[in-house]
């Protein structure tokens, strides 16, 4: 008998972090002139919003003498000024000012600080993560078109969950858990279609309404590993925009924004709010299991379990193979 204890292995060591566009902040979390250090993808980076409203993201250490660009740094105009010697950088990672020198070398004025691609879409700030810094391979997905005016943002939520981000989206393919965890029947209809980096599913499902279960349509558009936009069309018309963002290979930041169509009657608004409450209630049922489960590389699946292995095979395209493509 050895006196040694081994750390609990939840199986995430074999799962790398996928590449993709990932939400790193809500737009209103970074106001003009604000700078923040963010921790995602097993690393750190610094974001700021310039006077011009543009968000930029850079590696955290100043290339001059290594100060952390998120500590006591300041946004000056559209640039970020390092606290250590007041070097200023623009969003392209180029030096724009060094107050004490006679000459900024031309190459520093081109770029000397690594940047992260940033897109701001529908109130969410996204950055592109790729382990070898390859350029973005697709664009951030936008909300579907609202049938009548503009979507109304009703609720936002976010959770930090001790799980790899692949498992959260894989959960949608886990047909058998709907009955046990959520108490709703799951009747998959229609098939998923893969078009490049986008996966689409349309299901017909029994949705809870005050008048009992009613048949409704659920359209899911998953773009890359980081985004999933679900449109519920039945007695309500709700769009749930979800982002999963890896903090590291065993921690995920889950964000939701929920929208509904404008001009709802009181009655339909009540049903809409009940639907949103129900969706939040469902994820609260999933989370305790997610927080403690292990990733099983070879699960013991039986008939009725759903196409999880097929989903995993397709998800693998989001993992960097290490060669240029």
């Amino acid at each position: 008998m050895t006196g040694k204890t081994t750390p609990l292995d939840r199986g995430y060591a074999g799962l790398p972090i996928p590449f993709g566009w990932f939400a790193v902040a809500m737009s209103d979390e970074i106001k003009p002139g604000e700078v923040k250090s963010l921790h995602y993808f097993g690393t750190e980076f610094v974001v700021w919003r310039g006077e011009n409203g543009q968000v930029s993201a850079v590696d955290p250490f100043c290339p001059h003498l290594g100060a952390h660009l998120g500590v006591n740094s300041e946004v000056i105009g559209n640039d970020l000024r390092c606290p250590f010697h007041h070097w200023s950088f623009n969003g392209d990672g180029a030096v724009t000012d060094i107050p004490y020198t006679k000459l900024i070398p031309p190459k520093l004025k081109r770029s000397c600080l690594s940047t992260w691609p940033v897109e701001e879409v529908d109130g969410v700030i996204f950055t592109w993560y790729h382990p070898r810094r390859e350029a973005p391979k697709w664009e951030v997905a936008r909300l579907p078109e609202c049938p009548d005016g503009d979507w109304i943002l009703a609720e936002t939520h976010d959770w930090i969950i001790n799980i790899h981000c692949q498992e959260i989206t894989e959960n949608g393919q886990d047909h058998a858990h709907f009955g046990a965890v959520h108490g709703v029947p799951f009747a998959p209809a229609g098939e998923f279609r893969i078009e490049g980096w986008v996966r689409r599913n349309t299901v017909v499902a029994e949705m809870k309404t005050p008048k009992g279960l009613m048949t409704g349509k659920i359209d899911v558009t998953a773009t890359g590993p980081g985004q999933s936009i679900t449109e519920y069309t039945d007695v309500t018309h709700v769009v749930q925009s979800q982002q999963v963002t890896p903090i590291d290979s065993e921690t995920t930041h889950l964000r939701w924004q929920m929208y509904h169509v404008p001009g709802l009657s009181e009655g339909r608004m009540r049903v809409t709010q009940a639907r949103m409450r129900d969706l939040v209630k469902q994820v609260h049922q999933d989370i305790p299991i997610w927080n403690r489960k292990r990733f099983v590389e070879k699960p013991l699946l039986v008939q009725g379990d759903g196409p999880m292995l097929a989903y995993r095979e397709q998800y693998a395209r989001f993992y960097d193979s290490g060669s240029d493509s």
Partner: protein
Amino acid sequence: MSEVKLTVIDRGGETHRLSAETGEVLMHVLRDNVDLEIGICGGEISCGTCLVQLNSDNAERIAAASEDEAEMLDALGAGGDSRLACQIVLDDAADGLQATILYED
């Protein structure tokens, strides 16, 4: 390795007669024998403190400036036989070189 004889005029106008060896970088020779303030960036073509004026004879024979060096010389407003000493590796063509340190604080 063979000897390379150098004559260096510093910022104060003083003349230094130095002896270096082939393979040495001119900037290091200047920094270690004439002025510690030369070569702040360590030879990365970023500081301009190793800017020197060379005599034409030797200047013609040593290896020409790279694109990066040329760009920096241009930014410094340096012309003609000016070079960045950190980019000059001394060889036989440098024997008898006269270098005037141009950099001023």
